[in-house]
């Protein structure tokens, strides 16, 4: 049974997630940051936390940054009124229209303009409303953002630039509101790509990305904007970029993913543990490039098996790079070939989404096959 939940902001209605039978993907509730290994990262000294969903956490991150850095600027389509996903609520009210403003509807212009701003001393946050629409800016990102420092011999650089965009399946987005474009950009060195999997990580990783001395591309899983709720410190804190997060230790197989699928893979790990006695190690990659090869390698050396999952299509998805690198590093430790459970090689379909998406059932099935492989 599928039930769609409608939520409205002013006149905008959009679906958030679908409820399937008794099991719901609606709420991913990380009770507190102490659940994950990343708790050791700097949290606020006062310990003052609030229950926040991901868009509130992202909003909070930007408020923190704007408060202390008067050169911070946010620009993009519809950011002035609060953003179509409410990530920029109250920023313009508090910080004014010279720091938070709408741009014309032109992604190549947004990124081009943001480059000029960032290069001239402003902490620039450029928002691309949907990752599906980032492609007009592909040239500016690949040919300019990624190469600015290298081609000028470090005379000029874009450390001040952060690009935020939405990402991933949302239940009904179809071809153009569901894409995960990280693989396209992972092929261009010079930028960092980050994808958080919950509200707590979103805030910490976003602040790190903004402060990082390299340009960053921060993809926000729109399905998690409301669905992921964590205890999030009110003050600013940073989580390290380039580090994967082992969210569950295990010994039989390494399950690796990022973004919204982290939750389905956790569910799969629970099923495998309860019903099949298989002990999974679950890793949230967090940073796509530069990715944490060491953590994944160590894990696979221990377990001998790796299953990678991502929403983007199988062929040339980022899982291919991980598989190639890990087989090179861990070939003699592997008990089974590395497996990828991904979207099919099709554009992202609308009514067929439940069949297209990698889910815990496909993962459970493939893991069992891999355990039987030897």
């Amino acid at each position: 049974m599928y039930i769609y939940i409608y939520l409205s902001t002013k006149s905008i209605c959009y679906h958030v997630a679908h409820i399937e039978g008794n099991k719901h993907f609606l709420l991913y509730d990380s009770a507190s940051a102490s659940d994950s290994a990343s708790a050791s990262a700097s949290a606020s000294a006062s310990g003052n936390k609030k229950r926040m969903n991901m868009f509130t956490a992202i909003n909070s991150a930007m408020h923190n940054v704007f408060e202390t850095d008067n050169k911070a600027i946010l620009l993009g389509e519809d950011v002035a009124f609060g953003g179509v996903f409410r990530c920029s609520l109250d920023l313009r009210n508090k910080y004014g229209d010279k720091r938070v403003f709408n741009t014309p509807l032109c992604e190549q212009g947004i990124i081009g303009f943001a480059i000029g701003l960032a290069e001239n001393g402003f902490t620039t946050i450029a928002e691309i409303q949907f990752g599906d629409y980032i492609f007009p800016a592909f040239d500016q990102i690949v040919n300019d953002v990624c190469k600015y420092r290298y081609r000028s011999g470090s005379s000029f650089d874009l450390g001040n630039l952060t690009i935020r965009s939405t990402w991933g399946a949302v239940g009904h987005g179809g071809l153009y509101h569901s894409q995960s474009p990280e693989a396209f950009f992972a092929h261009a060195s010079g930028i960092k790509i980050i994808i958080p999997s919950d509200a707590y990580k979103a805030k910490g990783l976003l602040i790190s990305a903004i402060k990082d001395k390299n340009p960053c591309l921060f993809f926000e899983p729109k399905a998690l904007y409301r669905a992921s709720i964590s205890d999030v410190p009110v003050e600013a804190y940073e989580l390290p970029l380039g580090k994967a997060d082992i969210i569950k230790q295990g010994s039989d197989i390494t399950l690796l993913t990022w973004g919204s699928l982290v939750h389905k893979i956790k569910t799969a790990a629970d099923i495998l543990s309860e019903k099949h006695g298989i002990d999974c190690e679950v890793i949230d990659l967090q940073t796509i490039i530069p990715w944490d090869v060491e953590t994944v390698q160590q894990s696979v050396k221990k377990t001998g098996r790796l299953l990678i999952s991502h929403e983007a299509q199988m062929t040339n998805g980022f899982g291919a790079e991980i598989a190639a690198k890990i087989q090179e590093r861990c070939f003699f430790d592997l008990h089974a070939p590395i497996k990828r459970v991904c979207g099919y090689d099709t554009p992202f379909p609308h009514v067929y989404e439940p069949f297209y998406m990698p889910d815990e059932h496909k993962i459970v099935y493939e893991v069992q096959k891999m355990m039987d492989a030897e």
Partner: protein
Amino acid sequence: MAVAIAAGRVWRPNRGLSQAAVLLLWRPGARGLARSHRHRQQQQFSSLDDKPQFPGASAEFIDKLEFIQPNVISGIPIYRVMDRQGQIINPSEDPHLPKEKVLKLYKSMTLLNTMDRILYESQRQGRISFYMTNYGEEGTHVGSAAALDNTDLVFGQYREAGVLMYRDYPLELFMAQCYGNISDLGKGRQMPVHYGCKERHFVTISSPLATQIPQAVGAAYAAKRANANRVVICYFGEGAASEGDAHAGFNFAATLECPIIFFCRNNGYAISTPTSEQYRGDGIAARGPGYGIMSIRVDGNDVFAVYNATKEARRRAVAENQPFLIEAMTYRIGHHSTSDDSSAYRSVDEVNYWDKQDHPISRLRHYLLSQGWWDEEQEKAWRKQSRKKVMEAFEQAERKPKPNPNLLFSDVYQEMPAQLRKQQESLARHLQTYGEHYPLEHFDK
């Protein structure tokens, strides 16, 4: 009435003038459209007045079906100060630049011309891999550069070396970039003529066309926010103006009210593509008003016209925080680059006309001569001296090694990522065994 009720407001008549009269009397200037739009949003809705209420346009109704004819027969006129013989046409437009400044303009153009000849030849001899000359367009570079402050930020396309020349970028550094030697500020990463100089406020050139246009707009916004009393100038050719980034840049500059000068060098060709195949409207200047941008077309081979237009554009852009578009008409006398032979698509006669009859350097020289500030003796001496300077820098640049191959790997990120360091180490190991197959003797140890 339904509209008024929906708006939740009660209609009140304006005192005195009706709304229509107010709009008719008020002629929006280039930014008036923006202002009138905001004005519109504050007006109260009324269905008793039969006036357009659309938020998208500030205009009256018309009941006659009429398409606007684009004016391509007689386009926007071309502003000039000197005739082709270097004589001032309208004395009130003479900028009366002092002798030293005019000599600097002349020497910058001629030094550039000399450097172009030598470096073009050096590519033909296999000494550098590639080169682009500036023949015929020197006036657009120095005329505009002379009208700017030294700290104004410059974004170029690739045919604006004269701007750097005017800003006293040393020959040594021009050559270093073309040779990619250890003195190159860009560390040998790019093809020749991709100059950059932070100290002289000249952003590093990149090959993709027009990407610099929206970037320049963002930089101008930054200058406005910083109250820097600084303008940004962005150069591009008429071909690059066809790119989407040009449209993006113009629109952003106007809507976000940025102090920027868009400087289009319309030189007649984009490689082999003539302007008749590049656009059907009246060049690039005619596009400006469509975006709400103050625009002008100038004779790009007339240094004083370029100077006057840029000077005034700069003054107003900074004072009023709005963009200006200057389309400088000129002619590309040289080939597109060393990879091009333009005799394949244009006649030698056409090129000779511009070289002999309408050249920015000749026109300025005539002016100098008529002022008594220059003569044949000085011309001969300067030609000899400039050639000597260029040759010296050239020989020095040739002798220097390229940077160490380790520099292939740095500056991708601020810090070198672990995987990249591994790749760097693997190349180093490879060279230890197979080094003889690589041109290591030309590279710094």
